[in-house]
């Protein structure tokens, strides 16, 4: 239910001036134009979220389709807090749906280990990382083992805390931390190797 004490009558959709509060309200009322506006506004970033977790592009498209159905169907559960909260809420719906799909299809492949990670080494300089083509970095992440990749994306890219990740994946919080540390080491190693090769 929308957290709004005022009695508004929003007619029509103006993509320039429409804020998230009004957009969500219209979507709740079933306005087709508002729904299309929401899709146009957030679908590109949400598709990238799906691509991060899905094993392939076809699975990512299915997740995107089902995710928007879920967003429109459960928009009544969204409560406006500030501008940007609708985007974050939609993003969270997509992440949850992606993880659920992975679990149902048993493709999560978590590395169940509490082995402490190797001593942390320095990461590559941020300035050098920015010179690496984004597609190369995405490729490095995709090459990570599935469990490491999932936890890395959840923590480093989507910003979920380890406690939330542990609850979502059904693992211990320590396990989430150690697997993220291991993923980070592997990624840093790959980036350094690429930078060394590029320097040569």
């Amino acid at each position, binding site marked *: 239910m929308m957290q709004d004490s005022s009695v508004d009558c929003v007619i029509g959709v103006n993509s320039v001036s429409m804020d998230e509060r009004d957009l969500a309200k219209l979507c709740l009322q079933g306005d087709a134009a508002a729904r299309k506006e929401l899709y146009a506004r957030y679908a590109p970033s949400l598709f990238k979220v799906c691509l991060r977790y899905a094993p392939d592009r076809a699975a990512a498209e299915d997740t995107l389709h089902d995710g928007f*159905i879920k967003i429109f169907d459960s928009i009544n559960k969204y409560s406006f807090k500030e501008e940007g909260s609708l985007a974050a809420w939609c993003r969270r719906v997509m992440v949850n749906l992606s993880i659920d799909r992975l679990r149902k299809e048993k493709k999560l492949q978590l590395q169940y280990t509490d082995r402490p990670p190797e001593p942390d080494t320095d990461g590559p300089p941020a300035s050098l*990382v920015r010179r690496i083509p984004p597609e190369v970095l995405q490729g490095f992440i995709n090459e990570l083992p599935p469990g490491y990749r999932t936890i890395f994306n959840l923590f480093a890219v989507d910003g979920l805390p380890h406690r939330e990740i542990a609850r979502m994946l059904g693992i211990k919080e320590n396990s989430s931390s150690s697997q993220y540390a291991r993923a980070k080491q592997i990624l840093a190693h790959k980036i350094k190797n690429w930078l060394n090769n590029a320097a040569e």
Partner: protein
Amino acid sequence: MQQNDNNWLDAVRDSIESIEEPLPEGMWDSVAADMAAITRRRKAVRLSIVGIAAAAVLAGAFLILPQQGKPEAAAPLIAQAETPATAADQVQAHESGHEQSVSQTDTGLPEMTGQPAPAVTSDRLAELSEPAPAVQPETEPEPQTEQQTRAETPAEKVLKTAQERKADQPADRQKELQTEPQLELQPEHIPEHHSRSISTGINFALGNGSSSASAGRISTASVPAEEPIFATRAEAGRQGEHIGYHTQYVHNMPVNVGINLSIGLSDILSLETGLTYSYHSARHFSYLNDYVMGCDRQEIHFAGLPLGLRLTAVEMRKTSVYLYAGVMTQKCLYASWNGNHLLINPVILSSELSAGFQYDIAGPMSVYIEPGLIHCSVSGDETYTMYNDAPWNFNLKGGIRFNIK
């Protein structure tokens, strides 16, 4: 080091977020079409639910029966009383005690002690016996009517005799007889199952212990010695009705509360089970013509195991309206009659259709209230509940539900 660690990770994130991915073609059309189909389907489901709920409410409004039992329902089984002798022995005891009589007042009527009637044995029967008055017609008897051509039953003789005697009393004595305190029967003095005829006799006493005893005696004598006195409670009731005795149950609406567990099968469909408690109370009135002989209170406590399906019609953030259909088995936990333990063990099998309103408290826990229509069948001949005469009833449930999705 930590700052550098965060910096290069931020750089990785910013970099991959900048990647442009083309959206799949036709994705929006597919989403829009599916949303329209979902909306149409839910609208049809909601209309169906509303229609069914309205039909159930209307059906319940027409089917609700008055919550009163049949007059011939007699008092149920309670604590065991002393087993009286067989009918033959009782008749013989009566014959031998024919000359004995209880103390009589100056008016010729035995005194009503107002004490609870004791358990009736053959000895007691002899003590309570009273010589039947001899009727000496002074004039030539009138031609007998059809009713008089058949032999008067013992009960009719007693009533007639008692009425004649009453009419002979002075006006103040008649008034006194009218205002005699009601005979309150203590449950432990109501005899056992197969001596029901005696207890029936005691029940419809005209404020006169001797008369009641004689009625019991006479009704005993009216039955062949080798047969049981009354085979069923209904028969005892009918015999009672013959001389103006009847009973009546007034039932209160059962109250049902419980803890429910709901397991989500889909977005709108859930499987429900749980544990319920229901309380059934009733008042049992016994009358002789228009004279209230007694008022008893029956209470039965049940524990129930429900199983059903719940279909959500309207769902908002914290509230929802739904339709429920299910079955339930209820077992008696405890029963009482005027506060005394009632030795019955009924089982109620019920099927139910109801509409409910639910409010989410916190997490998976919510409270609900559910008015609906219920059909119940009760096992056991000894138990008399509102469902014996009115199996279709309105029911009101409320409780706490734990939702598991």
